[in-house]
Structures are given as structure tokens and as C-alpha cells.
């Protein structure tokens, strides 16, 4: 078997299995940490697709940023020092129906898509192209995203400040 294929199946399995753990883990901290492996596997798959910039962004943003926040949230919302952090199963019926429909659609798409195979070739670096596109063609969406993030940040600061003033007055 080709090394490339070997790696692909390894990371694909890692992604899928850890995604299963995320869903089925009874302990939500375990679920959160399993999510790390999912993100990690996805990043590896991006690497195999020669999308190195996206892969690294995936790591930096999801593993380094979002996941840390998720784990923070999970740890802080539930009781911290009893390890039993169980999640209950809710809404089994609607969830089953919904996922069944979703799975059907996906399988349909799989079967009707014409999967083209790109010939094996050397890829150029993606960073330069992404950079150029971002500041030329997609300058507006990028600025909008930036403003959006700024607004979110100011909002968060204001909420935190209100909390603090409340607790201080108390």
C-alpha cells in the first residue's frame, strides 16, 4: 500500500473514531478532549490535501483557541472537583430522525457526484496565493469579519465590566 494512502486511512480513522467518542462519551470533559483529536485528524487530512495553510490555521484556531475555550467552559460550568461529569441522553427520537435524513442526503450526494481525480503533481505554496486574494479580491469580507470580531470583543468586555461592577457594588 502506498504511504500516502496509509496515512490517509490512519488520520481518517483517527478523525472518525474520536468524533464518535465526542458524541458518545458520558463525560463531557472526555468529549472535549476527544474533540482535540478530531480537529487534529482533520488538520492532518488538510495536510494530505496539500492545504498546509488551512491545516495550520485549523490547528491554531481550533485546537489552540476554540478548544481551550470549550474546555474552559466545560470545566467551569459543571462542578469542578468531582470527576463524574456525565451527560444525559435527550431527545433520542427527533435526533434519530434528523440524522437519518441527513445521512440519506449525504449518501445521495456521494453517489451522484462525479468524483474527479486530480493527477499527481507538485503543488505551489498556497500561502502566497491566499495572502494575495485576501488583500485584493476579498478585502471587504475580511474587513467585515474583522469589524464583527471587534464588535464581539467590545461586547464581551462590556459584559465582563458590568459583571465586575455588580459584584463590586455587592
Amino acid at each position, binding site marked *: 500500500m502506498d504511504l500516502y494512502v496509509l496515512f490517509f486511512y490512519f488520520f481518517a480513522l483517527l478523525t472518525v473514531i474520536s468524533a464518535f467518542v465526542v458524541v458518545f462519551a458520558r463525560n463531557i470533559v472526555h468529549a472535549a478532549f476527544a474533540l482535540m483529536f478530531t480537529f487534529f485528524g482533520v488538520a492532518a487530512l488538510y495536510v494530505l490535501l496539500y492545504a498546509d495553510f488551512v491545516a495550520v490555521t485549523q490547528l491554531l484556531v481550533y485546537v489552540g483557541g476554540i478548544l*481551550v475555550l470549550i474546555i474552559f467552559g466545560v470545566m467551569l460550568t459543571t462542578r469542578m*472537583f468531582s470527576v463524574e461529569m456525565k451527560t444525559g441522553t435527550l431527545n433520542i427520537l427527533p435526533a434519530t430522525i434528523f440524522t437519518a435524513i441527513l445521512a440519506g442526503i449525504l449518501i445521495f450526494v456521494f453517489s451522484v457526484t462525479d468524483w474527479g481525480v486530480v493527477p499527481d503533481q507538485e503543488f505551489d505554496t498556497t500561502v502566497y496565493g491566499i495572502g494575495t486574494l485576501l488583500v485584493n479580491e476579498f478585502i471587504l469580507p475580511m474587513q467585515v469579519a474583522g469589524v464583527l470580531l471587534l464588535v464581539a470583543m467590545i461586547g464581551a468586555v462590556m459584559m465582563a465590566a458590568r459583571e465586575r461592577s455588580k459584584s463590586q457594588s455587592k
Partner: protein
Amino acid sequence: MVETLEQFLPHPLLALFIHAALPMVIVFPYVLFAVWLERKVSAHMQDRLGPMRTGGWHGWSQTIADMIKMIQKEDIVPSRSDKFLFKFAPFLAFMGSYAAFAVIPFSSEYIGAHLDVGAFYILAVTSIVTLSILMAGWASNNKWSLLGAMRTSAQIVSYEIPTVVAVLSVIVATGTLNLMTISEMQSGTIFNWLIFHSPFLFIAFVLYFISSLAEVNRTPFDLPESESELVGGFHTEYSGMRWGMFMLTEYADMFLVSLLGSVLFFGGWNSPFGDFMSGPIWGVFWMISKGMFFIFVMMWLRWTLPRLRVDQLMDVCWKYLIPFAFVNLVLVALWEMIF
């Protein structure tokens, strides 16, 4: 490098494996040496001698003996801890830090992965260490550990910003994220090094050094461990080799940021004397010496300075480093445009 190995070895997978394990050959002896050096440096700064007995000359094999001792020690897992995460965290920590060595160009001939986004990759992959510390702190089921873990994650997430921006200044100046290319651009004499490129890159280096200190939890930013407050921080409950893995990670991280600093600002594997003493083997020598120099400075700082408080740590980051880093970035960009 992989291609060369493939010629000699029966299977390409083996070549790949050996290629991947090469940094290990440097990192493990380095850690043993650095722990010994830390003891000697601290001892001499405190008018002591430090380890003197094991192995003869100035106790050079003390850390080797310690490592053997740690391996032999009982593996204690607290009964109320989350066993799987508790056991797994040290390995994840080392994984995160070792993975980053893949893109460090140790010499003109050797780099683990010729990644075009090398600098970016290092910053991304080291964030796994944060997760492992969180994991260790939470799984220990100890309040001190959890406080330490919380502090770490807050600290590393915050200090990532000035680090990234400082690294970005270099990238603005060089126009590439590839660490090998950055090293190659600095070849020639010592004045081709980026630290002498512009005054703002010097400031960027200072910012990078300070924030990388915080990223690897060294004094004065060693709050996650802060042995006098949080007992041992996130690794309070660890013992034996699992604790040893955390130490390994800490020292490997120090080495990593030092090497990255020398690649970004001090010419990487380039000799400071131009063609004199240069070449692939000398490259490894220069790279490691430059790294060791920064590690010595880190030790020097550690044995001089007290520790900041957690809110002051955040102040340093958000009120001082980040504004400076951004202003500096703009100035670097302007400098590049003008000259």
C-alpha cells in the same frame, strides 16, 4: 535528506522514521545537559557548587542518574483522578512540543519537514501543550493543579498574540513563512542577520523573547508551576517518569523557542564569521550554540527574578507587549516599504 536516507535503507518508511527521529537525537541529550546546566548555573549564582559527585567532573551525569531514578519510581496515580487523562497528559505535552521541532532547520541540509508555513506551524502546534496542561490540571482532581492549569491556559492563550505579532514582523521583513528560506536569507556575515536588519526588528526580538518566556512558563512568568504558591501547579500530583515527561517538555519548549528565536533573528545555522566555520555540520553547531545561549539567558533570568502575579502577568501582556508589538509591526512594515 529523506531521499539520501532512502538510498541506504531497505524501506522508505524506515527512512521516514529515522528522519523523523533525528531531532530526538539532539533534544534528549540537550535536555539532560540543560537540566544539569540549570543546576550548575543556579548553584554558582547562589555561591554554591551544585551537583559535584555523580560521574566525576562537576557531576556531569547527575541528570542521567536522576532519569534512571525517575524511571524506576513508582507510578502513582491519584485514586480520585481521571485516570486516562491523567496518564495521557504528559505524553500529549511532549508530543506537542516535539512536533514543532519538525520545521526547525538544524542545518542547511537538515530540516524535518520543508513546510512553507513553518513559522506559523510552530505557533499552532505548540498550543497542544496548553491542552495537555489543562488536561493534567483537571485530571489530577486537585484544586492547586486546576488553578495552575487555568493560569497556564490563560497565560499561553494571551501571550500567543505578542509572539505571533513579533514573528509576523520578521515575516513582513522576509516575505516568507518558510524557516529554511529565512535562514538562507541571513547567510553571509553577521550583519545579514535580521536582528541588525532594522531597529524595529530588534524591538521585535525583545518582544519575542519576553513573550516566549511566558509561552514556555519560565520565570518571571512561571505561574503555572509557581512552586511557592501552587505547590507545583499542574504537575503537583505527578511523580516519577510522568513528571519527568513534563520536565522534558518544559526544557524542550525552551529549546524550541530559543531555536526559533535564533532562526528568526540570529541567522539560524549561519556562522557569524561568513564562510569561516560554515557548512552543514558547523550549521548544527551554530544552531545549537545560539539556542544554548538563549537558554542560558533564560536560566539567568530565572535565578534573578521574582515571579509576577497572575493579574500583572496579564497586564504585561495586554497593556505592554501587545500594543508595542502592533505598533512595532506597523513600523517594520513602513521600514520595509521605505528601504
